[in-house]
């Protein structure tokens, strides 16, 4: 990994650390760290609109929701790691045989 990439990843970490410093000590009771997708709901309902369709299935608890989100990330990371690892090994092998 190049130095440029390490700096970029560091910048990503800093970007996501800033909100924790800005709103340190605050939580959901203060209306912080809630999802933007979900906050559109009440704004729409304020206009008098009633949703006409409910999700067929909902994760029954926060724990289950976390489980499925983690699963989603794991599946993605697995595929990326598998192929990039495969490519890396293949490249090394080809260099050796050359």
């Amino acid at each position, binding site marked *: 990994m190049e130095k440029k990439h390490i700096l970029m990843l560091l910048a990503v970490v800093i*970007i996501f650390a800033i909100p924790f410093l800005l709103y340190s000590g605050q939580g959901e009771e203060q209306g912080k760290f809630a999802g933007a997708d979900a906050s559109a709901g009440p*704004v729409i309902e304020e206009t008098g609109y009633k949703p006409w369709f409910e999700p067929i299935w909902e994760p029954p608890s926060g724990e289950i929701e976390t489980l499925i989100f983690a699963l989603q990330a794991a599946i993605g990371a697995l*595929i990326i790691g598998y*192929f990039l690892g495969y490519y890396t090994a293949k490249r090394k092998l080809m260099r050796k045989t050359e």
Partner: protein
Amino acid sequence: MHIMEGFLPWQWCLFWYLVSLPVVVYGVIQIKKITDKNPESKPLIAVSGAFMFVLSSLKLPSVTGSCSHPTGNGLGAVLFGPAVTSVLAVVTLVFQALLLAHGGITTLGANTFSMGIVGPVVAWIIYKACKNAGLSLSIGIFFAAFLGDLSTYVTTATQLSLAFPIPTFTEALIKFMIIFAFTQLPLAIAEGLLTVVIFDYIKKLRPDVLEKLEIFTAPKAIGGK
């Protein structure tokens, strides 16, 4: 950017389905064409989809104090174009709609339009423009992913304002932009950086495939070291 299940009047659901469907169908045909021509590009399509899977599962905090998630649509758009990316977005959105009650089946058309079509189209155009302007590949990829992410959320805000122009379209747009677009700014920057990192990595490992996809022309002697 997920419009929740049932949160669009049915006429709008139908409208966005009709707009998105031809693009997704064209994307499926494109995937077939690309993989027939370059079977080696198959894993990269999987990686682009997986990148979207990972990034859209991460709810990240923003300076506005609320959380949102990146889209991951820049990588696929740059590598394979917007139509292929729309198919990858459908896969991700269906997973989230069915298993997470995130987004929905009724709003799938609308969400595909923002994350799978407008975002990738913007990313693709920006990437091409940067390339034509002679800017470095990394800068092109960064702005492609950054603006692809941001335009996805601007699209969601616009879609909601069109469906709920209360009291007026402009006032609704301002309201939804504050919820979606402002929160998204730092996330979009991070997404731009992450996309550059993974793209550089792919470029280092498989310059041959990227060359076949006509993404860049490698310096003459490939393979050597």
